[in-house]
Structures are given as C-alpha cells and as structure tokens.
C-alpha cells in the first residue's frame, strides 16, 4: 500500500494486463483454427446473454466469499490453507441438514441448514487455530492436512451411505424445492448469494478498518508481539480469524448448495478454495479489493468455459491463459508486500514462542 506514485502504478497495471491479453490473443491465433470465434467467445462470451452473464456473476459470488475468507485470515496474520476441504464438508453437512429438516418451514429450515454449514467450516478451521494456540503447531500446515483428510471422507459418504440412490451421478439427494434460493437471472444459476457476498464484503471492510476489534485484528496480523504488549488478547486473534475464515468457507459451501447445485456432488468444489487464496492475494488482502479480483477470476473462468463449449478452444488453453495472466498481473501490480514476504519466508515479525 505504498503511497508513492499511484499514477505510475496504475499505468504499470494497465500495461501488464495489456501484455497478458496480447499474449492470450497471440496464443489463440496460433492454436485455434477459428481464432476469431474463439477470441470472441472467450472475451465477449460472458456478456453475450443473460445466461452466461448470470453464471459468471454466480461464480463471482462464491469466489468473493471464499476470497474474503482468506483475506480476512491473512489480515490477522494467520493462514488457512484448507478452504477447499472446509467448503466441501460444509456443503455436505448443510445439504444433509436441509434434507433432514425438509418438513420445517423454509424460513426456519434454511437458516438452520446454512448455520450448520457455517458451523462445520468454523469448527474445521478453528481446530487449526486452537492447535496453534495450544501447541504452537503451524496452522498453515494443519489446516491443509485436516482439510485433505476430510475430502476422502466426504467422497466416501457421498458415494456410499449418503448417495442419492435414484441418481447415477455421484451426488447426495437434492434439497427440497422450497429450500432452494430463487434464481435471479433464470435460467442462469445466479441467486441471492451475490447479494450476500457483496454485503459481506462491505461489512468485512467496515469491521476490519472502522472498528476497534478490526484495529486489534489487523494489529495482531502486523506485529503480534506489539499487539500483545498493548494488551490485546492475541490468542483470540489466532483462533477467531481461523474460525471466521472457516465460517465464511462454510457459508460459501452452504450457499453453493442451496443457491447453485441443490445437492453436494463429488468434487464439485473444483478448486474454489484454492482460487480463494489467489483472489485474496490479488486483492492485496483487502475486502474491497476482493471485488475486482474475484470478478476478474470469474470472467476468465466463464470466458474459457464458453469458448470451450462453442469453439475448438481447449481446457489446457484455458489453463495456460490463466497462468499467463497470473504471471503478468501479479508481477507488477502487487508491491513486494509484507504478506508476500511472509507467505514466502513465513517470516513472522514477532516471536511465536511467547504467546498467551
């Protein structure tokens, strides 16, 4: 967040994006037999009709929540590398709650089901926080391992005991019609998750930058020793950020079910958790930065998807293009921030030994 020469920074960013786009165009021109169509589908596809637009916004919604979940943890100097698993498990618990409560009225059943999802994510991530608090185990690693352990269990449950016997998909039963969130741009998948996501971003921004707790939260992330010295309960700011991060992933999982897929399918998270990390980092860990970051992500994703459906654009091509854009954009937009240094060196500007 350097204050120096914002104009040149903007210029550099634009140049980087321009470079990435130029490379994309070049790549497509060489590879595709119908480069024009592929380019058009890739770049304009997401805006070509309400279906694609809605789907893109829906991808954005989920990514925004997971990205926020990561950003907010980073701000407190803790790292949640288990978002993918948290999302997945929460989706399952939310689904099962929804199925179990089918007889309840929506206004009661749906909030309960979502809360169960939130709780699941919070507990799984919170465990890592508690472990760090109690035993000083690295939450980066434990969150990754715990989530990795959960994924096969969920896989098994969906394929085995919780499987929808009526379907050949590897999926749970679908939640009752009444519980499904309304579609905003039918037939696209867009649903009120978008509104929730935007609200959450704003709330998180205010909470982080405009409240006393947010001040303590950020300070704990910047210099935990200092925060402790100042009488901040730093233990709280190890556990709570992990819990909140997990809860956001849990919420994302629950909404993913009730808004988009109506069931939990094997492997349906497909990297949402990982992409959340990238979104958070591109957003410079800033809640409002998550908006453009997640939007760019969603745009690329749906562009690649559409081009794949309608032209000879391939899966790999989409992957390569995303890689190229990553390389370009972050190379120049992000300053060599402390988080980058810490993510890389895991250098924490405080001693981890003596903590409350």
């Amino acid at each position: 967040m350097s204050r120096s020469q914002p104009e040149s920074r903007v210029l550099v960013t634009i140049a980087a994006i321009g470079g990435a786009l130029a490379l994309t165009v070049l790549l497509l021109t060489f590879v595709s037999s119908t480069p024009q169509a592929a380019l058009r589908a890739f770049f304009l596809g997401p805006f070509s009709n309400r279906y694609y637009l809605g789907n893109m916004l829906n991808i954005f919604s989920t990514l925004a929540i997971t990205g926020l979940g990561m950003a907010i943890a980073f701000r407190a100097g803790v790292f949640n590398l288990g978002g993918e698993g948290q999302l997945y498990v929460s989706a399952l618990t939310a689904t099962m709650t929804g199925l179990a409560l089918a007889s309840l009225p929506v206004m009661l059943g749906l909030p309960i089901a979502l809360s169960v999802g939130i709780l699941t994510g919070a507990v799984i991530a919170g465990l890592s926080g508690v472990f760090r608090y109690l035993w000083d185990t690295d939450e980066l690693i434990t969150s990754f391992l715990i989530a990795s352990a959960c994924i096969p269990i969920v896989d098994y449950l969906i394929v085995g005991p919780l499987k929808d016997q009526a379907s050949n998909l590897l999926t749970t039963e679908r939640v009752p019609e009444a519980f499904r969130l309304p579609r905003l741009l039918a037939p696209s998948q867009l649903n009120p998750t978008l509104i929730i996501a935007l609200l959450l971003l704003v709330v998180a921004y205010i909470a982080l930058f405009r409240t006393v707790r947010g001040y303590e939260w950020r300070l704990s992330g910047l210099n935990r020793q200092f925060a402790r010295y100042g009488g901040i309960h730093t233990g709280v700011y190890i556990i709570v950020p992990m819990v909140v991060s997990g809860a956001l992933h849990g919420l994302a999982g629950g909404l993913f079910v009730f808004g988009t897929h109506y069931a939990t399918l094997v492997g349906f998270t497909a990297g949402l958790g990982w992409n959340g990390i990238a979104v958070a980092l591109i957003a410079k860990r800033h809640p409002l930065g998550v908006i453009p970051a997640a939007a760019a992500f969603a745009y690329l994703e749906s562009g690649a998807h559409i081009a794949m459906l309608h032209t000879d654009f391939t899966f790999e091509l989409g992957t390569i293009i995303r890689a190229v854009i990553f390389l370009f954009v972050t190379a120049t937009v992000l300053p060599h921030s402390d988080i980058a240094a810490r993510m890389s060196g895991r250098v924490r500007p405080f001693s981890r030994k003596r903590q409350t």
Partner: protein
Amino acid sequence: MIYYAIEVMAPLLLAGLGGLFAELAGVLNIALEGMMLAGAFAAIVSASLTGSIAAGMLGGLIAGTVLAYLFYFVGIRMRANIFIVGLAINLLAAGSIPFLSSAMYGTKGVLRLPRVPRMPGFFVGIETGFPLLDQIFLGHSFGVYLTVPAVLLAGLVLQRTPFGLRLRSTGKNPETLRAVGLNPDRYRRAALLISGMGAGLAGSLLALRLGVYLPNVSAGRGWIALVTIYLGYKRPFGVLIAALCFALAEGVSVAAQGVLQIPGTILLGLPYILTVLAMIAYSAMRRVAPSDD
C-alpha cells in the same frame, strides 16, 4: 510394506529437499507440484529419445529447473506475489504439458513411448547376511539410493558451506546480506533452481518407475513434499523423517485397504490424519519438555 514405503518416500524426499532450499531462502515454493509434473514428462520424452534412464532423469531435472527459473524471474526479479506465481507455474505445467504432448505425439493421454527403458533394481543379488534388512533396503530403483546422498549433501551444503549460510540468512533477513554487499536475489535464485532440480528429479522418478507419462501423475505429491518441509522442521534430516512418516502412513492406508473392512475411500484420508496427529504430538511434547522456553 517398509520396502514400498521407501520407494514412495524417494520422490517426496527429493522434492522436499529441493523445496527446503527455497524455503530456507525465504521463498515458499508451491510450484513443486508443477515442477514434478514437468520433470515426469521431460523424463519420459528424453528417455525415449536416448533410450537411457540417466538421460531421462537429466531431462526431468532440466525441466524442473527451467520452470524454477521462470519462477525466479517473475516471482523474485519482477517482485510478483510468490504464492500466485507458484499457482501460475502449476497451471502452466498442467496446461502446457498436454499441449506439447499432443503436438509432439498426438495424444494428451497416457504417453507410452518406445525405447523407454525399465528402471532397474539396484543391489539385487547382494546378501548382507541379514535377510530382513536385505528385503527392506536392497533391490530398490536407482532413485531411492539417490536420496541418502541427497540428504547428506543438502545437510552439508546448508550447514557447512558459505553458500548455505548465505542462503539461510537470505530467508531469515535479506537485509543482512545487503548490508554486507551481497545480493539476496542471487541466493533466492540458486535456491529456487535447486528446488526445481529436486522436484524435476522427483518427477522423473515417478514417471520412470512406471515407464510412461500420465496426466496428473504427480497427484498432489508436490504439496505433500511441501508439508514434509514444515513437518521436518526445515532440516534435511527432518525432511527425511517426515517423508518417511508420510510414506509409512500411506503404506498403512494402502495395506489397510486389503485387511480392514473399512471402505477404501475413507482410508485415503488416513495419511493426513496421522500426519496431523504426529505434528501435534511433537509440538505438544516440545512444549512440555523443560528445555523449551
């Protein structure tokens, strides 16, 4: 089981050791996965072109190194976010290998190329007089026997050479290097290249053991290698222990599938759970121990 655990451990360990260098130089190399994949692909291609295992391993090593250089260039020279660069390299490997594969051989699936030799077992006929030891330690593929010197070498280089000292200092506080007129970026580059070599070599072991290249053959081992660095408390010998633990846990889960009545899929989570428990137990023990402050 221990025999196979050792076999499983070898690539993890090589990648982990490589990653350790990067880690100590202050660069979290999450691109190990992509580098392994590239190493695997290049190993099969060059083994097929030359008909030699050694050339295959060299090819893997070079491929990993090339990606590592890209990592260095964007992540360090251009000051990009290390994590995102890592993700990008992984994507790049995952995307461009099928691309190359289909351009070169017309398939992006299983790549079974002619002239790829089988990985020979080493020390096969030898007997030391301890049949149990023979059974566990002899007859492994070449890569396994690479790991022991690799651990020793890594330890030597990191702890006992000026280069290692500077590299470790880079990770802890690059300013101290700058203050004495050294350029920390040089050490970051060296560390990254070494990690690329380790991961590339690890990938080549995976592929040469099978004799074919398969999409996604690394199957998350790059991530596990990363975990072993932390589990091993960032020491070469620790990484060895961690990789071995993980391999044993994996071995337990594999063997348990045949014996226990628990569904196989669930057991796949076992290595992770065992690892977390080991980690907690270790940390908790350290806390209790009076030597801690």
